């Protein structure tokens, strides 16, 4: 089973891919995609590609209230481990 660290690593890889001019050392669990200047389509692409890599399907609306990358990690982890 994928652990939270691995999920974070995946998200980080996708952020670097989508925002190639970003200093990757800034990507921490506490940071938010918006902080990096990611627009709504950038954010959606990062989320969809991470979900694809995890073979997870989470409705986009569930990410709505999440404020940082840790929140994304937690939600994906929870979905992967529920049943």
């Amino acid at each position: 089973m994928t652990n939270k660290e691995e999920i974070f690593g995946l998200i980080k890889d996708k952020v670097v891919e989508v925002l190639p001019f970003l200093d990757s050392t800034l990507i921490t669990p506490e940071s938010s995609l918006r902080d990096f200047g990611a627009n709504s389509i950038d954010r959606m692409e990062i989320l969809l590609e991470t979900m694809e890599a995890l073979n997870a399907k989470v409705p986009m609306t569930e990410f709505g209230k999440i404020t940082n990358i840790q929140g994304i990690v937690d939600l994906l982890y929870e979905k992967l481990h529920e049943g």
Partner: protein
Amino acid sequence: MKDKSCVVVTGMGVVSSIGRDLIEFTASLYRGTSGIGFLPSALSDGVDAKIGATLQDFSLDAALLQRYAVPDSLAHATLQCANRMPLGVQAAVAASLQAWLQAGGPEWNIDRRRVGVIVGGSNISPRLPYELNEKFRQAPTYLNPRYAYQYLDTLQVGVLSEILGTRGEGFTVGGASASGNVAIIKARQAINSGDLDACVVVGAMADLSPMELQSFFNIGALAGKRFRDQPEKACRPFDTQHEGFVYGQAAGCLVLESLESAERRQVEPLAEIAGAAFLMDANHLPDPSEEGEAMAMSSALRQAGIGPERVDYLNAHGTASPLGDATEIKAIKQVFAEKAEKLWVNSTKGLTGHCLYSAGVVEAVATVVQMREGFLHPNRNLDEPIERVCRFCSTESEATQAEIAMSNSFGFGGINTSIVLSKGVR
């Protein structure tokens, strides 16, 4: 006295299989270098089309922008906006930046609401859905959200407007293989009408998938049968052994501007678009029309106020399709009559392949380059002309000072266009 409302070229750019910038493109034209080879496997695997002139290894990166001497802030904005865009968009941006810089764009003291962007081409990127299709059928949920705007042809308009900061009208025009000329004609009209002072005119790279290539093969339009193993010999405009066109990838750009605006900015015009015509021949099929082609050429000359005897050079549509070449020759005979004997004719497609949507713009760039540099490029592979009615350039460059030139583009579906270019502003 010069007519201040006339429309001139103040910038040019090109990205093609024979040159990533104007200098390389010019040298290739002069030498008659061919960009034609075997298609990469991503385009040719499993289909019958094997030959093409592609933008191998092209990408819009910092090194390329440095080569174009793009100022740092503009280079940064360009990479931010376009670095992950489809190949065709990157090629359009690269061609446009060259033209924009040559026209002095970054320093323009001009109302940006009076600068437009017109992109020639429709169904520009069928390769995009083609490549996503298999994965989409298996898992639609994971479709890349960018597809929602990247499949639209107008993506190129938006990207260019964002990078160049233009605020005037921006749109795409479709005219099949004549799209480039159609874009030039529409930009000229917008400037003539007074709606724009200047316009960035782009010939979009036709980003075809194996499906379009196979369809061209199936209607018998593609070369590469007799010369299947010798791609450099496959494209033979006006030669008795011609057998169809070779797919070419390229993007081209012209900055068109009113003479008044160019003079106000103290920029030297590179050429004038002296006349242009766009006429249908009332036929939806791919076959060419002698009547339609002759009408387009005559109308463009009439509009320019130039008699056929004054045209030094014709950049032919010349795709190397047997019927297309023969039809164009008949139309030339009709328009130029005995004057055709002195008319120099070549086809840039013999070097670049048929660049489809961008052909008109790429060939207008080639025409202006040749007029300004005093040569006419070789007709590659023209060993035995189908007719000797006009003065075909040989397989070597000709040192010739062409003052007045014409460039033809014809498209499937009865589309006939012709533009007349003058080296000096009349």
